[in-house]
């Protein structure tokens, strides 16, 4: 990426004042990136900006309270930072934000689907339009647009909304202006029993690792999540799909009006359960009822933590 060197330069400048800067670097194969913690000069060179940088690094911030942390953010990640700041879960003074114009990240599941087997990736060359992945000596050419994460296709915030350093040229806001809930709307049209059955079938393979929650930048209960507590005792440890689904509802509700749809829950799920849809549904309703979008404005209050005496968009049942 053109501005990668510029970014490194900014980090080099800011690093002496910081305990650590979090960015990304290459991982176990050329098709993967991993979060990269930069403690000193020697770590800067490894930093790489690429469409493989799926991880929302804001997730690390609440756990690093008290430290001076630099964080590199994509546009969508910056919304998590805004939301965290808004909820005072991190302090603005402690964090330094590095932003860049993001053109989207790659959805590994889509790559897997397109190529079939990606166990042994030898190389991955990326251009603005396409990528060529070599697996077991066989090159596969893919259009970037085919493997772009769903959230990126309708991205409205490609540039970090908040940053101390911004490298590269800002991308003007792309259309559409409204979030894209086409898939969700399609699902909502299914019969109730189909919807009910769908979730049971999908959640059946959940292994209750709670990566969805651990990867969520706004799941700040961390060690005290009610998924595993007995006081309050919301969920049993029994092997049943009911509790697995209940947890997803708990997560979605706790995220209501706070979720920025970064999609980390679904990306982190080791068994690819499409749980983002539940959060999207919540967000869609939040937008409808409260005309509110999380993580956009530092001064906002999440709608469920506030109220109006007269709610314009709530029509109560007339008995």
């Amino acid at each position, binding site marked *: 990426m053109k501005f990668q060197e510029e970014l490194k330069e900014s980090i080099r400048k800011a690093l002496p004042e910081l305990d650590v800067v979090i960015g990304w670097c290459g991982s176990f194969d050329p098709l993967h990136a991993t979060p990269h913690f930069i403690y000193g000069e020697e770590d800067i060179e490894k930093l790489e900006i690429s469409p493989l940088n799926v991880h929302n690094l804001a997730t690390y911030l609440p756990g690093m309270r008290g430290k001076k942390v630099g964080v590199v953010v994509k546009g969508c990640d910056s919304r998590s930072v805004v939301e965290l700041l808004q*909820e*005072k*879960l991190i302090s603005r003074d402690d964090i330094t934000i590095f932003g860049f114009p993001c053109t989207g990240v790659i959805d590994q599941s889509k790559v897997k689907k397109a190529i079939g087997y990606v166990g042994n990736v030898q190389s991955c060359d990326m251009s603005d339009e396409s990528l060529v992945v070599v697996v077991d000596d066989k090159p596969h050419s893919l259009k970037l647009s085919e493997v772009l994460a769903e959230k990126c296709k309708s991205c409205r915030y490609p540039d970090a909304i908040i940053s101390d350093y911004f490298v590269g040229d800002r991308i003007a806001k792309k259309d559409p202006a409204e979030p894209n809930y086409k898939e969700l709307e399609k699902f909502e049209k299914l019969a109730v029993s189909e919807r009910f059955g769908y979730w049971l079938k999908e959640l059946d393979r959940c292994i209750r690792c709670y990566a969805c929650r651990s990867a969520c930048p706004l799941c*700040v*209960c*961390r060690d*005290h*999540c*009610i998924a595993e*507590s007995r*006081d*309050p*005792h*919301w969920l049993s440890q029994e092997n049943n799909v009911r509790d697995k689904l209940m947890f997803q509802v708990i997560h979605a509700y*706790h995220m209501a009006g706070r979720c920025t749809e970064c999609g980390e829950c679904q990306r982190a799920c080791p068994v690819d359960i499409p749980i983002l849809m539940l959060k999207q549904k919540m967000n869609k309703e939040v937008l409808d009822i409260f005309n509110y979008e999380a993580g956009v404005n530092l001064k906002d*209050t999440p709608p*469920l*933590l506030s109220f109006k005496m007269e709610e314009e968009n709530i029509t109560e049942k007339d008995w």
Partner: protein
Amino acid sequence: MKIGVFVCHCGSNIEATVDTATVAAAAREFPGVVFATDTMYTCSEPGQDEIVDAIKEHNLDGIVVASCSPRMHEQTFRRTVERAGLNKYLFEMANIREHVSWIGKDREANTNKAVDLVRMASEKLMNNQPLYPKKFTINKRVLIIGGGVAGIQAALDCADGGLEVVMVEKTSTIGGKMAKLDKTFPTVDCSSCILGPRMVDVAQHPNITLYAFSEIEEINGYVGNFEIKVKKKATYVDWDACTGCGICMEKCPSKKATDTFNEEIDFTKAINIPFAQAIPKKAKIDPEFCTMLKKGKCGVCAKVCPSGCIDYEMKDEFITEKVGAIVTATGFDLFDWTVYEEYGGGRYPDVITSLQYERMLSASGPTGGHIKRPSDGKEPKDVVFIQCVGSRDKSVGRPYCTGFCCMYTAKQAILTKDHLPGSQSYVFYMDIRAAGKLYDEFTRRAMEEYDTNYIRGRVSMIYPKGDKLLVRGADTLMGTQVEVDADLVVLAVGAEASKGASKLAEKLRISYDSYGFYMEGHPKLKPVETNTAGVYLAGACQGPKDIPSSVAQGSAAAAKVLGLFSKDQLESDPQVSTVDIKRCIGCGKCIQTCPFGAIKEIDFRGMIKANVIETICQGCGICTSTCPQGAVQLQHSTDNQILSEVNALCQF
């Protein structure tokens, strides 16, 4: 836990449609239940003794009574279990009367439902914990907000009872609406003759501190220990030095200042004392009209003031007062009648409000007690009174009856005749509401002795006709249309909550209705209490009231305060939220949503945690449903308690 279950027949009230013996038998199968029986009247003395005996005999440590609503007898049974040595929170009720036996006749379904409710109660009970109230000391000072007749009464009763009283009045004199009145019904005695001495008592009472021309800025704390921030608005006159001599007012060249005390029927000076009997009798400058303050020129008052107390640089001052209880007596204001286009919408000078008329009748008023038409200063001959302006009128959003207008209109009609023997009064009314001692007799006097023409009907239109006003209305008794050529029209304008009442309510954390009137604790049984402990109501702030009712409430509120302060320590209700410090992650969401400001951030070994101030917490539980990790739990309604009820209902 060893639970005892008592299923009450309530005579035949329950037994007629619920098989209580079956309910008791079913309860014996529930976890934890070691004893279950049905009893005739559980709340009776033998019934209660049975509970006490069973607790002792079966070593019970939890009791379920299935009977009437807990709103009826929860307190009763809590005392019963306490008598037997159990903590009173190790008790639950199942409401099988109001919610079961009285609302359906199907005995099978009712019995089945009663069993469910008992199961729910006993499952919850298994999650109950003994709770203990905390004791705390109280500051035996009381704040009275508003210096009208209700506030004055409350203040004097409290002060005479030995309490230190702080009174805050937003205008520059106490006395309120009553001070503006000429005479009072039904005795037609002079208003200021009754009120005046009471006002003086306030000023002179050693236990009363008066802050006039002041407002409540902030209220913190809780019953027994409130901390009040009072804003003393700048008067530009050093009140410690001002003697109230009135020379400044006399000499002030700015003569067009708004005279709120006289309901704007005349103007006053930019520096003024509202009226001769004002308490405190101190001058204040209205900066809107003072040329010195506006343009930096003039300075006449400073020059003439014999005690040199004018201070153009004066700023608002903030004072903190600590009190243990608060009486709000903020009174009422008049409805903005100009929304009535049919009455001219305020365009006709000779259509005035009853309160303006009151000032006109008053010997100390701007007309010196002479009735004069505002338009030309002539004495009117035909005076029309229109009732229910902004009362009992849904079309203007005021469906309620102000209650005292019928009476003062009768009084004003009588006074009109007294002042102008040749005059004729007409009263357009909807109904005469004269329920009070000597009230009905009084209205009859107005009609019979004073020849007031009472016309039952609404006025549909007023329009000018020469120098008169043509008042057209219906006489619904005669079924005819009536027209009166009036010299003066007096509108009996309804009362509404005083301006700023809702803002103050939010500071006090008390509820108010959609008209801004404060909500009492219970419409019958707690007329002067609010739902916030330590905050009481007196007078028209709770709803329109006449003088005797307001005074009665002032005394009632004072009695409540004296009662509260009769103890040296208060006990807090232990059904409050507590924070599990281990689970709390310090996100502050509970702090943000608590309506009472009862949760504060604390530092716990370097970590931010939430902490509930038990005495402020009112036990609503909003924090509990807000906390995502369940670290804040409302005692006696914890997540686990409610979940156990849900499970008891859904999983069997």
